[in-house]
């Protein structure tokens, strides 16, 4: 995934969320995007994962610029996973069914969808909570379900926007351990937006944003 001179403005350009950002994420790389609130972290992540379109520059995925919203939809369905800060699980669906959701249109067989979702929930340690509704799970468990959901179609890129923002310190550590382990095992690129430098320290590279611009890039130890 690559951003080339990307900018994102609102209100006819009067508000600039991101300005002239160039960034390349290599296959299998773990990149953290850090910065204070309003620095443009989430905007960058949304653009990188095709959830939003830039007002300047280009966003490339696997070397090509997707031509349309429909092209991005297809890429998101099969090659990009996303983890939200607020989990965004569907309250009427069980953990298993929430993980199945991204597979509609990708995996045709319902039984196969169920098997895959079961295996993913086993991987995130929720094999015993398959049929629980989100309201019956703790915050950490909900985020694990969301992580399993992001892996549903074996993506090449995972975007995680403040994935520990709504969790206590213990659950945060568990979720970060899980993300790091899954990234290491599956080899997908991971772009994580956070304001927490300790969280960012787990990444291979840290991009510092301020006022919508990249102000520094460091390699984590």
């Amino acid at each position: 995934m690559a951003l080339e001179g990307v900018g994102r403005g609102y209100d006819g350009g009067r508000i600039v969320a991101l300005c002239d950002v160039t960034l390349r994420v290599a296959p299998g790389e773990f990149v953290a995007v850090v910065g204070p609130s309003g620095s443009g972290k989430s905007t960058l992540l949304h653009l990188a994962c095709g959830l939003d379109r830039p007002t300047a520059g280009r966003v490339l995925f696997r070397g090509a610029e997707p031509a349309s919203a429909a092209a991005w939809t297809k890429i998101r369905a099969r090659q990009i996973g996303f983890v939200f800060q607020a989990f965004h699980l569907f309250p009427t669906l069980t953990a298993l069914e929430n993980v199945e959701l991204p597979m509609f249109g990708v995996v045709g067989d319902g039984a196969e969808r169920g098997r895959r979702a079961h295996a993913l929930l086993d991987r995130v340690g929720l094999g015993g909570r398959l049929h629980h509704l989100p309201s019956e799970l703790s915050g950490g468990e909900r985020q694990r379900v969301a992580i399993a959901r992001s892996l549903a179609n074996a993506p090449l890129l995972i975007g995680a926007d403040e994935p520990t923002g709504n969790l206590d310190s213990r659950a945060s550590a568990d979720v970060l351990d899980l993300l790091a382990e899954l990234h290491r095992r599956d080899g997908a690129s991971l772009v994580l937006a956070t304001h927490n430098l300790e969280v960012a320290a787990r990444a291979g590279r840290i991009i510092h944003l301020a006022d919508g611009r990249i102000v520094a890039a460091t390699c984590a130890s």
Partner: protein
Amino acid sequence: MRFVSIPARNLGRRPIRSILTAFGVALAVGGFVVLTGFSRGMERAWTVSLIERDVHMTAVPRGTVQILTASIDDSLAARLAKFEGVRDASGELADMIMLPSGQPILVVGWPPGSFLWETLRLSAGRLPAPARPDDAVVGQGLAAALRVAPGGTLGVLGGRLAVTAVFRPSSVINNNMVIVPLPTLQRLLNRPGKVTVLDLRLAQPGDPAQVRAVRARLAAAFPGLTFTETRSVADSNEILRLIRGMAWGISLIALAIGLFTVLNTLLMSVTERVREFGVLSALGWSPGRVLAMVVLEGLVLTLGGSAAGIVLGIGGLRWLAQTPMLRGLVQPEIGAHLLLEVAAVTLVLGIAGSLYPAARAVAVRPVEALKYE
């Protein structure tokens, strides 16, 4: 998990709202079933009543709207009976009267010796004797309602008739009918020498081309009369057409209310779930899949409502047909044709009611989901 279970779960999130919406659809569909079934029931009752009497064609004065007030010289029947292609003809005088119980019944007068008397299947008694002008035969349904039997008497239009027989018809109209000799009814109604309709038996009723040809010749020979084949009598009867038009008009209003109920509910539901649609888009759901989900929600609502509506409609129609005002006038009919129409109405309600909300859901950009955090 099947795809269809997702919209079902979404509707289950607000069960009271979903049930009330389905109930609104049920009332609309029930209204459609009652009104359409009612108008068709009346048409069917009239048609069956003629078919049962072995009448192939009827003649009324040109421009007649209300048959019961039509007036034709009864001598015309003899001329028609001699017409080429006509096997027999009979005058018939009819009027609707109200019994003390409030039930409307049809009283008809047939000429002594008319072929119409031969079509009656008597369950008890005998036909009126030529020398007994005050004899009458009564339909089985009316006889049961009035508790009269052969040997009893019946008060009609101020006269006292001797019931000589009870007949067993298929038509609900004939079932609630009193038949007397024509001169008797002409006297009671003070319409001497007059009939309201002429009933014709044709020589070749099974040959559509012959029937059309005879009708054309009759129309040319008797320009003051309108000749109608029995099977299309409902289409050419102005009163029945008016009832049909009113039934359709009121049904359309009821269905429009049902449609807006579905639309309103889904629009509220979609507005409440903007974030979810953004999330689904972020997860890679195509616009078509999101649209299908919302349209399915509409269809689940309307299917549930329509099923309840059919039950309500059938019950309502049966009840209506038994009310004193309508007993004997309507032959309730819930046929495959009506059920197919309900299915089509259900599809239209479900799809039309959900397309706009679905379009709103599809228009949500994934980034909207994050704004709602």
